[in-house]
């Protein structure tokens, strides 16, 4: 299954993405250090290592917040799709920054003492039975482990080898991890530092992520509830082929709960599942480019006739039988096997001419 895997399939957009990410990160850390060291007069200056631990922790939390904002933002507007495209590099970098935060904190606060640093991490604050006194370090470690698992399995190789549902479930762990991270901050930094700014920023980040998810979720729910009154039996009526713009698709729910993406291209109609093989991207929001359906999320391609990715790729998605009767597209709600070839329905050329004329 799958094609030959490379570490990263580079292209110009990914390079620009990563460059922008690294510049932002350097600016974040650099500014943090300069301001942190300059805020108090000499004699009261913060120790740079301790400050760097804070800078890295703050950067990692900000990055994870952004990672979590991108998903719902892209659901709300396709203008955010470019942020989605290379999100995994942002995710992996978030892990790397968190890891540095962990290593420095371990060395700074736990090493060179009478205990093994890893033992110290677990026993130096023994207040496991207290809520405010709870060793916040352990919470950070738990979140770091999740970030590690996700970064380690972020590559498409793992997506294929773990199978999509397992991979998805694993990557949903990011939400509990984010919640744990907020506790890590609340019981650590917020508990120690008294400035209200920290509480406002942490709460604000959490609020933003929650609000975006709720908004995107509500939108989805509203469209879903609009779909309920569709006919439940036999072939599903979609509508006139002329209502689908050339090289685009409409999306229709099927009795079984799946969604089908019905594409119009080159005077033909073809239907495949709406769910991208990669990460469940909405194929029906994609386009037909160079006679291939292109997923709007990461640009995976499928041939409209058989749902197979063009060589060298071998991914397959399910196709649906389609015909046009009395100017109405009909879809057989029973999906074909992924990769099964289906003859596209031909749109009556006369009607296309009329469409062009008007």
């Amino acid at each position, binding site marked *: 299954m799958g094609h030959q895997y490379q570490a990263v399939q580079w*292209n110009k*957009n*990914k390079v620009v993405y990563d460059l922008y990410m690294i*510049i*932002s990160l350097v*600016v*974040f*850390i650099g*500014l943090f*250090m300069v*301001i*942190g060291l300059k*805020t108090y007069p000499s*004699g*009261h*200056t*913060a*120790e740079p290592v*301790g400050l760097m631990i804070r800078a890295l922790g*703050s*950067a990692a939390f*900000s990055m994870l917040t*952004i990672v979590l904002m991108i998903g719902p933002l892209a659901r709300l507007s*396709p203008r955010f*799709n470019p942020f989605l495209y290379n999100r995994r590099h942002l995710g992996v970098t978030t892990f790397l920054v968190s890891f540095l935060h962990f290593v420095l904190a371990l060395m700074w*606060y736990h*090493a060179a*003492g*009478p*205990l093994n640093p890893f033992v*110290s991490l677990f026993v*130096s*604050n*023994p207040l496991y039975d207290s809520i405010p*006194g709870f060793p*916040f370090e352990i919470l950070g470690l738990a979140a770091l482990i999740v970030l590690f698992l996700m970064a380690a399995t972020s590559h498409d190789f793992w997506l294929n080898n773990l199978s999509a549902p397992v991979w998805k479930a694993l990557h949903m762990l990011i939400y509990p991890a984010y919640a744990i991270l907020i506790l890590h901050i609340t019981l*650590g*930094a917020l*508990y*120690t*530092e008294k*400035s209200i*700014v*920290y509480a406002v*920023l942490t709460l604000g980040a959490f609020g933003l992520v929650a609000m975006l998810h709720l908004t995107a979720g509500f939108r989805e729910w509203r469209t879903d509830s609009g*779909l309920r*009154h*569709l006919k439940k039996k036999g072939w599903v009526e*979609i*509508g*006139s082929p*002329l*209502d689908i713009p050339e090289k*685009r698709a*409409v*999306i229709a*729910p099927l009795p079984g709960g799946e969604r089908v993406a019905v594409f119009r291209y080159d005077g033909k109609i073809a239907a495949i599942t709406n769910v991208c093989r990669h990460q469940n991207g909405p194929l*029906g929001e994609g386009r037909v*480019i160079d006679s291939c359906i292109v997923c709007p999320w990461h*640009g995976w391609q499928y041939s409209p006739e058989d749902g197979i990715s063009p060589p060298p790729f071998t991914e397959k998605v399910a196709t649906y039988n389609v015909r046009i009767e009395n100017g109405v597209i009909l879809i057989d709600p029973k999906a074909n096997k992924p990769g099964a070839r289906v003859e596209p329905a031909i749109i009556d050329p006369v009607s296309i001419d009329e469409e062009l004329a008007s």
Partner: protein
Amino acid sequence: MSLKPGVLNPSKNDKHDMFVGWDKVPVVDRRFLFGALPLALLGTSGASYAIAKNVSDPGAGARLTTAPHSVTGVLVHAPYPMIRVADAASVYGLRSMLIIAQGKCNTGYDFSETQGHAVKADGVIVQRKNRQLLEVPPFVGDWISDSQDLPADQISTLSSPTEESLGRAQLAGTIMDTKCFFGVMRPGRGKTHKACASLCIRGGIPPSFWARTKDGRETVLLMTDAEGGPVPLDILPLVADPVTAEGEIIRVGDLLQFRADVNAYRRI
């Protein structure tokens, strides 16, 4: 004829070219990114600025690493290893410098046999206001040697400084290791520093009690047990938390000591 109700038409909301990762970026997305990317950078930089700007004052501590320091004085073994040096600037005429080792441990060396000896010691000075510590290598070596430079009468004043009881008091404050709090960690206090402080105290760095009076003045007292000996490790769970305890305050030379039983400490 139009689309059946319930059929979604994404092209209604998005008429533009689609961004495809491996392709040229469409004009709409280019325009959007042109505005969004600088805004995002402004947002993250703003967060960075706000977080760094609001870090609380690390305190007046410092680790004076610029020059190696050589001090000559009298070696004291209990309750914690220290060197007492003559200091004309002090109202007590002397200054007690706790000896601490590099890292989070104290020197494993037993000073009881050299108690009262005049010595010359080299190390790094850790200073918070008028309090000083001498940070030395973890093992006894070249850094300490007997000194002939001190006159006998000075040795005797430094060996037995005046002890004065200032009475019993109920103090509220925080237990911290002297080393970090005096200037090594900056900030060397609070919950984020709890593990480190507890590790240092476990390693033999003398604990101190950072008490604040009601009007906000801070006093740092060297902690001992009720008999004036080193504090037992039972104190560790209470380190860095706000606590209160009743005990006796004693001045030994220039150093304030807080003598309290380890069971007298209560978390607030």
